[in-house]
């Protein structure tokens, strides 16, 4: 069986995004107080290449949640999701010195995680996803902490009871959405650009808009009832 060659970061074709550029939302979500918190991911890659482990750590913190979500969307369990995420990081590390376009790394990470997740899902003997989006309808890992709706909430200092209640409401509404919409909304909330989101979902950038509108509308309807 021919093995698809893993492209070097920077050789992935970057879909064009119309309108206001590549960033659909505000700056990167990183912990406040960090010097490098506002540094874009491409620059973090360059710094990591020079041996800056703090920059690498920030890159991981910033993008790991999306990679995890991608693996989860392929129906993998915790151990396999962790495996996919780690494999993705190792693939970046092995070619970090030859990355030609560091700005394209976030998108490359998403593409790589998807490929690894699809391969592993296939290897696990699960049904090949009929849906090319890899949205398999396997037992609902997404709710593994809340099979009966009993979500765990971690209370923090800023975590008001009201906020927790609202998150609980959103979580309940999410659970009733079709899996495709769950995955789309999750990745929409986690991706830092449309190109990263398109890679995570493996759909053309141009078809994100309508899917996003539809899923957000479905969620709002459920929240309104």
């Amino acid at each position, binding site marked *: *069986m*021919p*093995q698809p*060659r*893993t492209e070097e970061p920077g050789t992935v074709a970057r879909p064009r995004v119309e309108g206001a550029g590549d960033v659909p*939302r*505000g700056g990167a*979500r990183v912990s406040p107080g960090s010097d490098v918190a506002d540094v874009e991911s491409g620059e973090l890659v360059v710094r*990591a290449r020079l041996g800056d*482990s703090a920059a*690498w*750590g920030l890159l*991981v*913190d910033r993008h*790991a*949640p999306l990679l*995890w*979500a991608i693996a*989860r969307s392929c129906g993998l369990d*915790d151990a396999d*999701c*962790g*495996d996919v*995420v*780690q*494999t993705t*990081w*190792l*693939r*970046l*590390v*092995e*070619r*970090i*010195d*030859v990355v030609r376009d560091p700005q394209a790394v976030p998108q490359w990470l998403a593409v790589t995680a998807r490929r690894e997740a699809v*391969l*592993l899902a296939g*290897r696990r003997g699960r049904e090949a996803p009929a849906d090319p989006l890899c949205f398999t309808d396997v037992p609902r*890992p*997404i*709710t*593994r*902490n*809340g099979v009966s709706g009993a*979500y*765990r*909430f*971690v209370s923090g200092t800023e975590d008001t009871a009201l906020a927790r209640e*609202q*998150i609980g409401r*959103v*979580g309940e509404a*999410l659970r009733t959405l079709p899996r495709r919409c769950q995955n789309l*909304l*999750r990745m*929409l*909330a*986690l991706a830092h650009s449309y190109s990263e989101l398109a890679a995570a979902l493996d759909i053309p950038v141009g078809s994100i808009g309508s899917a996003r509108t539809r899923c*957000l509308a479905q969620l709002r309807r459920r929240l309104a009832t």
Partner: protein
Amino acid sequence: MNEEPFLDELRAAFEQIDPVPKDVMAAGRSALGWREPNADLAELTDEQNRELAGARSTSGMRLLRFSAPGHTVEVEISGAGQDLALTGRLAPATVADVRLRHPNSAEQSARADETGRFALTAVPEGLVSLVFHLPDASCVVTSWIRL
């Protein structure tokens, strides 16, 4: 309308429902330690799976080929589970120190003989990468593969 606060809520909900485990984050942060900055990367360029006649489908043999500028590495993997055998050949033929890297278990080592051949046994499944230290002080590392 501004969707940003709503997306923040979504993100928070998913963080509660299905958080990335701490050990996964920690492993990612330490992944940079696997870098081999002075090595030439040999990428996987071909993979074949051969079923052994009469054997269960899970005990076939995998043939992998990795290519780096100036070097190729062929690896044959047989066995199953925690007892895999890797035999391979480095070309052009040269002696070399071979290291098998495995994030979840101890590193193993072997020596490639003057024909470039090497063998590793009792290799557990999982992610692995081979590093070759050549007599001219150059270094070749294979892309990570999942056994």
